[in-house]
């Protein structure tokens, strides 16, 4: 193996990658003619079917960093990593479709900060818009840098070449077609990822003679360690490699982080807002939930197969010496193990597509929030629709330029990814409390919404800083001195959301609520939600929500 790179691409592989770049640019130019008005550019004309919106909703979160990172996490922690795909996603997606989507859709908002503007006014909306814009662009840059590093390690490509070629391509196709382009390419990426990665678990299971053969080989390679049970090792922090307790998974991940991410992170919610009608908007997250349940097959299973079949042990990134591979390299290693010319190009294209679609998702969400939630309300209130579309196009380019700058800054800080993810979580968990209370309770007031969000965010930052200064405080925040970083994240999210909810409720009781007439279309009890009357059982959202939850429970039982 060439020490400079893990994989060498043949001519047919390079042709497959090149065709992808030509295709996304071609699609961007084709869609440019349709992205004329603000609603077209920022919300894809609100005319996506449930399937397109659902797959795009899922793909916005299915970037390559996710794939590589969670495959690596499954090598490190075993099947526990699947919690982030099951309890960490499915209940929240179903909740979004059944409970929250009607309010987002009926209010005709263009974004999550836009909903907060209608429900709470400019203070809460402005706070969430600014935080979201900064975090999104920071994440875009860090993702860009991570992609360039992977391309360098795996393929030996120059870091600057990877950053500039991918950014220019994304910039051109998003600036041309707006959310139309982003959604089209996310759907394309969804299929490429599935068909690029699916052969790894298939061939892996053939090699190990099925699931039981794989488990036997893992036990042989790692005696005394349990990598293949989802819940049975979570009774005590010290019994599993993640240093996690089941309460952290259920209440921190399932009830807070996951609910916050899937129901209030505008990056994913924007895709569902583009649906053509309320039924499609409700059904889209449910469709996404079914496919999300299958993603561990192409992400977690390759990591487990790596434990079974790789002839050497992978190590943490920080401990990797020359000639050793880190956990995060398990997916490329498995690609190289099973895929020859042609198939390897498809696998690499899937990774590149994932990175670029993730970047496109970030910049399109940034352009919308900047234009509609910061620029329009605070800087230029009355302008023609065409002016805001032009602003959106320029924002896309500007967002990418800032992202490139962030990518170069990230090169100087090896651990910046951890910090950015922590920053992102500061905002998401409290926001869920603010949005949920706003949707469910008429009594919640504008000032309470703002103060609750502020208190939740500041307390989350405070807990993070406290543990950095006094590492022993993790035993207070995460309830055990055995808790590791992942567990600390879960409990910090839980406390910050509870603080947000408590402050919001207390301040609401002391302040005057809005008249009910002003809450129509925004709050439960003041909104007439259209019933799905006349539709057959198989067309009802609630039926498919029930099927999704049933399947989710069966998976927990199978892998208990």
């Amino acid at each position: 193996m060439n020490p400079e790179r893990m994989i060498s691409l043949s001519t047919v592989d390079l042709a497959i990658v090149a065709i992808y770049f030509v295709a996304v640019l071609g699609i961007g130019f084709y869609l440019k003619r349709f992205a004329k008005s603000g609603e077209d550019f920022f919300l894809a004309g609100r005319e996506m079917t449930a399937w397109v919106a659902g797959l795009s909703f899922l793909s916005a979160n299915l970037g390559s960093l996710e794939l590589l990172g969670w495959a690596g996490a499954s090598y490190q922690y075993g099947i526990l990593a699947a919690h982030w795909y099951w309890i960490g996603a499915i209940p929240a997606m179903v909740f979004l479709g059944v409970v929250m989507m009607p309010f987002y859709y009926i209010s005709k908002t263009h974004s999550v900060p836009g909903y907060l503007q209608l429900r709470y006014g400019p203070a809460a909306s402005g706070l969430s818009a600014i935080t979201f814009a900064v975090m999104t662009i920071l994440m875009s840059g860090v993702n860009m840098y991570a992609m360039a590093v992977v391309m360098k390690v795996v393929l030996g490509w120059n870091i600057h070449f990877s950053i500039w070629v991918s950014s220019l391509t994304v910039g051109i196709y998003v600036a041309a077609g707006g959310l139309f382009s982003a959604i089209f390419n996310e759907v394309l990426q969804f299929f490429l990822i599935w068909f690029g990665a699916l052969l790894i678990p298939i061939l892996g299971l053939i090699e190990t003679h099925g699931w039981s053969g794989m488990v036997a080989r893992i036990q042989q390679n790692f005696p005394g360690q349990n990598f293949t049970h989802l819940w049975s090792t979570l009774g005590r922090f010290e019994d599993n490699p993640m240093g996690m307790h089941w309460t952290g998974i259920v209440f921190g991940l399932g009830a807070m982080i996951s609910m916050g991410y899937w129901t209030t992170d505008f990056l994913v919610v924007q895709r569902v807002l583009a649906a053509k009608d309320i039924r499609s908007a409700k059904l889209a997250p449910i469709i996404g939930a079914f496919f999300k349940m299958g993603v561990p097959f192409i992400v977690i299973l390759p990591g487990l197969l790596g434990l079974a079949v790789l002839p050497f042990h992978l190590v943490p990134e920080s401990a990797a010496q020359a000639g050793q591979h880190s956990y995060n390299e398990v997916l490329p290693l498995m690609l190289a193990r099973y895929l020859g010319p042609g198939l390897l190009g498809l696998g690499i294209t899937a990774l590149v597509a994932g990175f670029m679609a993730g970047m496109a998702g970030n910049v399109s969400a940034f352009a919308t929030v900047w234009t509609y939630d910061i620029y329009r309300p605070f800087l230029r209130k009355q302008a023609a629709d065409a002016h805001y579309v032009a602003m959106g196009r320029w924002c896309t380019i500007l967002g990418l330029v800032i992202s490139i700058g962030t990518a170069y800054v990230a090169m100087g800080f090896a651990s910046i990814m951890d910090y950015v993810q922590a920053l992102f979580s500061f905002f998401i968990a409290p926001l869920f409390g603010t949005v949920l209370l706003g949707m469910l309770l008429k009594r919640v007031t504008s000032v309470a919404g703002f103060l609750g969000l502020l208190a939740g965010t500041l307390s989350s930052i405070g807990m993070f800083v406290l543990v950095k200064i006094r590492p022993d405080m993790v035993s207070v925040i995460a309830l055990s001195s055995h808790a590791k970083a992942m567990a600390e994240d879960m409990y910090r999210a839980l406390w910050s959301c509870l603080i947000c909810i408590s402050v919001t409720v207390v301040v609401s009781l002391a302040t005057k609520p809005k008249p009910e007439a002003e809450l129509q279309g925004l709050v439960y009890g003041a909104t007439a939600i259209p019933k799905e009357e006349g539709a057959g059982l198989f067309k009802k959202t609630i039926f498919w929500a029930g099927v999704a939850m049933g399947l989710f429970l069966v998976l927990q039982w199978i892998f208990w």
Partner: protein
Amino acid sequence: MSEKHHIIPVWFFVGLMFLIYGILIFASGLAEWANPPETVLAELHAPVWWGALLILIGAGYVMAFRPRG
């Protein structure tokens, strides 16, 4: 997918990509049939049947969602 704009459905583009990729992968699988690469389970000739599957799916999508009129 679009009634307002008459946009070619995204499924057509998905099908077209699969068709092109399927042909390339299938052809490369046939070309290396006698001399397979040094990958694990290369004797199963995965590129041939995976390429054929992509061609079938791609052709189906292209036919079903091709622009009309």
